[in-house]
């Protein structure tokens, strides 16, 4: 491979016909590995030697086309996949449930001093999600309980991130989510919530991005 900067450009005098231009040259001066690397780097930084070589350009065009065709083949295969076998899904989900994310244990007051009651952090998160989701136009993205929940009566902060349906009044939606979550937490846990932060992190359309993409 010539790195001589004084080397003349490849002859351009013989204008290649359109057909010649598309012809793939196997033993061109620029190796396939070098072309592959260049293509994979997004043709950056600009390589004048490659960009001025008709056979290299034809090879690049062919590779780009191959890439697009391969993507189409796999997309077609994916679309042609039969609906998943219900027993296959059930099998995966039952194994998933064996590895549920319980998180920390949050104590609950017990009338019997000899026994202790707990609710898992995972269950509280599920409660928060359900409360937030119940507000029309809101979908909970993420939630967390900040503070020493293992300590009975400890003061905690709850953080909820939501996605708002496009067109809803964001401030009101956040307030409604805050109320719904506080209500449910008050009813079903003994957490002492000093603050509940609702962040609108995303906006979604009604079911526009559903289905495989």
């Amino acid at each position, binding site marked *: 491979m010539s790195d001589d900067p004084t080397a003349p450009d490849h002859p351009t005098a013989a204008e290649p016909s359109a057909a010649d231009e598309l012809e793939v040259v196997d033993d061109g001066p620029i190796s396939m590995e070098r072309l592959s690397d260049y293509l994979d780097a997004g043709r950056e930084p600009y390589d004048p030697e490659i960009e001025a070589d008709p056979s290299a350009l034809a090879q690049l065009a*062919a590779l780009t086309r191959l890439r697009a*065709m391969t*993507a189409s083949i796999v997309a077609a295969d994916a679309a042609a996949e039969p609906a998943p076998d219900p027993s296959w899904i059930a099998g995966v989900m039952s194994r998933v449930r064996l590895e549920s994310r319980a998180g920390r244990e949050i104590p609950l007051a017990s009338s019997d001093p000899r026994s202790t009651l707990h609710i898992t952090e995972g269950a509280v998160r599920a409660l928060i999600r359900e409360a937030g*989701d119940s507000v029309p136009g809101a979908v909970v993205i993420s939630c967390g309980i900040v503070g020493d929940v293992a300590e009975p009566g400890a003061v905690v902060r709850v953080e909820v*991130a939501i996605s708002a349906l496009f067109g809803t009044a964001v401030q009101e939606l956040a307030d409604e989510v805050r109320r719904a979550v506080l209500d449910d937490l008050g009813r079903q846990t003994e957490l002492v919530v000093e603050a509940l932060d609702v962040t609108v992190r995303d906006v979604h359309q009604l079911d526009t991005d559903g289905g495989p993409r």
Partner: protein
Amino acid sequence: MAVDLAGAADGTLASRAAEGDERAFEVLLRRHLGLMTAYATRLTSSRADASDAVQEASLVIWRELPQLQAPDAVRGWMMRIVSRKAYDLIRSRRLADDVDELEVPSTSGAVDDPERVAASTDAMGALRSALDRLPAKQREVWTLREVGGESYADIAETTGTSVTAVRGLLARARETLTREMEAWR
């Protein structure tokens, strides 16, 4: 009231699943199952192996979701886990066969599907056949790169080889495929 998650963005589903929402995980899995299966089938050349690989990958995805830094990029991340699991299977099959058939083109799986054989009258069909005729290692590296969009370094790690070897295999696959597809341009 259960909110309809079918329209939720990938990132929302990934975040919820990372925090333990099994329903969100199922929606995410169903959404990408076709692609995951098609990818694994391309890699393993076997529908049975693909199903096993995707099943194993699904559990790893569930387990590792809490460590995912960019929930919006969950799809590519899921595909990388699928390829890792598919490759674990490929490797164990080769060890079981106890012969070095790495350069022997595969004749199993997608090749004998009559619909696909019939389809080779078009360019897509021609590429399918050309891919099926590639030596297995070249086809795998090609698929990891062009379908999975994986980096050379990731491919080297997944396939247990060096970046130099990956680059060489990829170049040979590209040479063969561009040559075979010349008639279809």
